[in-house]
């Protein structure tokens, strides 16, 4: 299993990378952490003419708080995210979700931006960032634009990003960061691809009534599913068994999961409902606790 031949480019700046993308477009593939992409190359499922290695772009390696956002550079390693005290303080759900990505040895190399553009429907970061209502900055030679993640994922491994474009930054709004959060995932073995994963953010008032909630599910459709209508059912209520049941049913209502070797369609849908319930309960518990301690 050796990759096919390719021309290798290592730009020293974002501008150089954009020039290369402009020139090579479809034939040029960006190489970030490579933890999903290099296996694809090794198995020759992809044989690009050129690889543009952006690992050296230090200008895209940062985590900072600015203008009410947590901003993460695209080539920030996942392990850096996981260990960052700033992320832990501001967006703890990201730390929890990151710990489920592959293994320590792959997180040491895998990047945040790489995971978002790879757009695996069961991957932890796309799902969690969608729950967090994150947006991304996308650059090309001609323009710089922003995209909300809710419009960004199109289908399996496909996003709206164009061949001449580079995702440079992920921005998470911090204004209304929820007190309650939870990330739940089930896979055959720890570190394997998730069969289903759920991210949930939740707030409650002093008497424990839900005031806001966001939830997304990965692994039950071609893109992570943001469950807005279903979560609205929780607003103004306290948790009950029957309410959780209804919410779970509603989230998976229109989902079209795969039927494959790892799990059947029915199994995935059922698993999703179980994990949705667990995630909401856990987030709720944390929200109530955080409210008490404030």
């Amino acid at each position, binding site marked *: *299993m*050796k*990759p*096919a*031949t*390719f*021309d*290798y*480019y*290592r*730009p*020293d700046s974002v501008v*150089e990378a954009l020039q290369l993308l402009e020139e090579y477009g479809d034939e040029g593939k960006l190489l970030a952490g*490579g*933890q999903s992409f*290099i*296996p694809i190359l*090794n*198995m020759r499922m992809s044989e690009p003419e050129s*690889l543009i*290695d952006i*690992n050296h772009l230090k200008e895209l390696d940062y985590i900072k708080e600015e203008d009410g956002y947590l901003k993460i550079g695209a080539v920030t390693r996942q*392990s850096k995210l996981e260990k960052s005290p700033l992320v832990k303080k501001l967006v703890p759900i990201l730390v929890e979700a990151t710990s489920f990505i*592959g*293994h*320590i*040895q*792959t997180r*040491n*190399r895998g990047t945040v931006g790489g995971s978002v553009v790879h757009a695996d429907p069961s991957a932890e970061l796309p799902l969690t960032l969608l729950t967090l209502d994150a947006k991304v900055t996308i650059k090309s030679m001609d323009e710089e634009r922003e995209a909300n993640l809710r419009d960004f994922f199109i289908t399996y491994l496909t996003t709206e990003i164009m061949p001449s474009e580079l995702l440079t930054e992920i921005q998470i709004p911090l204004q209304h960061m929820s007190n309650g959060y939870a990330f739940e995932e089930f896979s055959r*073995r*720890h*570190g394997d691809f998730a069969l289903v994963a759920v991210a949930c953010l939740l707030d409650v008032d002093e008497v424990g009534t839900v005031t806001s909630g966001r939830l997304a599910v990965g692994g039950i459709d071609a893109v992570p599913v943001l469950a807005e209508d279903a979560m609205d059912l929780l607003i103004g209520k306290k948790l009950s068994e029957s309410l959780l049941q209804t919410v779970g049913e509603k989230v998976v209502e229109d989902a079209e999961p795969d039927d494959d070797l790892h799990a059947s369609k029915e199994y995935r849908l059922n698993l999703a409902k179980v994990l949705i319930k667990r995630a909401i309960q856990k987030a709720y518990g944390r929200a109530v606790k955080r409210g008490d301690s404030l």
Partner: protein
Amino acid sequence: MTKVLWTQQMIISTNINGKLVEKSVEPRKLLSDFIREDCGLTGTHVGCEHGVCGACTVLVDGTAVRSCLMFAVQADGAEIKTVEGLKQEKNGPPLQDAFSECHGLQCGFCTPGILMSSLEFLETNPNPCTKDITEMLSGHLCRCTGYKGMIEAIHKVSNKNL
């Protein structure tokens, strides 16, 4: 900017186990193959070549990574440690002894990768709990031992450090 056409080779310079190595490689050469074939350091094993088994784990600039998921050209300028350099590390020989004493290996195919991961792990977690060790080991497949001995071995080294 660095540019290497597929027909060309690039001269890379890396520090492997404390020795400066300069060699020319074609862009598609995996770091694991570079280490084994070009540098003759066959202690680093290759199991799956797609990032699943962890046998090929080495330290690149101090962090444990899978060398089959990197190209040699990407290691230009990096500091690499392989199992052959283990004896130079503070926790190296104690790890080797503990693995042997606790039956942390049988056929030994997975061992070089696991030792390198353990080395980095003990650096950042001098006194780990079993859960942390299991989590670290989850990046490695061993078909012989059942992992119990390894967990014990790593505890043993960390206790010595106390």
